[in-house]
């Protein structure tokens, strides 16, 4: 089976004090979303949902949980 990514969209938001790149697109009837930390650009989570909002919401919630664990140390 072949398909195309449709309505591909990328935007930056702040989650738990960190800049996050959230990407979403539709493959067939399913929406896919992933969240990456902007610096250095590592993938944090990859999820699916019935709508863009649902998929992005799941990705950002999980990203928030992971990012909240990151400890900053004094210089």
């Amino acid at each position: 089976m072949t398909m195309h990514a449709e309505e591909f969209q990328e935007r930056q938001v702040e989650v738990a004090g960190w800049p996050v790149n959230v990407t979403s697109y539709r493959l067939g009837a399913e929406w896919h979303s992933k969240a990456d930390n902007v610096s250095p650009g590592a993938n944090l989570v990859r999820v699916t949902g019935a709508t863009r909002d649902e998929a992005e919401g799941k990705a950002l919630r999980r990203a928030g949980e992971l990012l909240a664990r990151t400890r900053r140390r004094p210089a």
Partner: protein
Amino acid sequence: MSEYARPETLVSTAWVAQHAADPDVRIVEVDVDTKAYDEGHVPGAIAWAWNTQLCDTLRRDILSQERFEELMSASGITPETTLVIYGDNNNWFAAWALWQAKIYGHRDVRLMNGGRKKWLSEGRELATGKPTVRPTNYRAHPADLALRAFLPQVQEAVEGRSAGLVDVRSPQEFTGEILAPPGLPETCQRGGHIPGARNIPWGRACNEDGTFKSADELRQLYGAEGLDGTRPVIAYCRIGERSSHTWFVLKYLLGFDNVTNYDGSWTEWGNLVGAPVEREVAKSSARV
């Protein structure tokens, strides 16, 4: 505008769309795991998972020659195959695979410029099925260790200032504010960087669409930190995969003769008893 030093090591998404079905071309998607591949991939592509197929899973190391030969054989690749690698996050893990393929002497290995992100954003065709692969009996060359730096070489470079060190992690990792990329597990005891290293985050070599910046822009980026190819360069990050991306840029896009990837990287140096650590950002690039 000047050309890349080795332009044949990059192919465009359009080239891949035209050639993915060629019998002498093998397309491989490489990411930390195969979740992205399973969503949908370049038609005809196979998947390699960084965490299980491109590392020794027992001791910390790259694949042995034997394991590399097994992977290439199972992937239907011969020494004459044009191997095209792509992946998510601007080819972060794809570059690690290319580095190993070069270590074991595969002649024709290329990155798809822009990686998975560009393929998706262009709305190109995606497949979910896995192609049928006819196994081969691949024989690799002995490892070319001129492409890889080990701890003693890095220590010697630090003591003798005999090579430029480029730390390609984020500025927060470089200064020791954090010990790992935000959201990922901490894997070392100390934060900071190897003394004398310059901080040029790997992603600065890429455009917004995931493609590499032009040769002129790259020359400016690295040249501004004293890295112009006249001295040996050692690239490192946390575990060696981001630095394989920078290694590719310096070696093939800018044509530096002597550039190595220190895959022990910060998780080796930052855990080493007695190793010197810096946290300050150097004011001058002149000493590199």
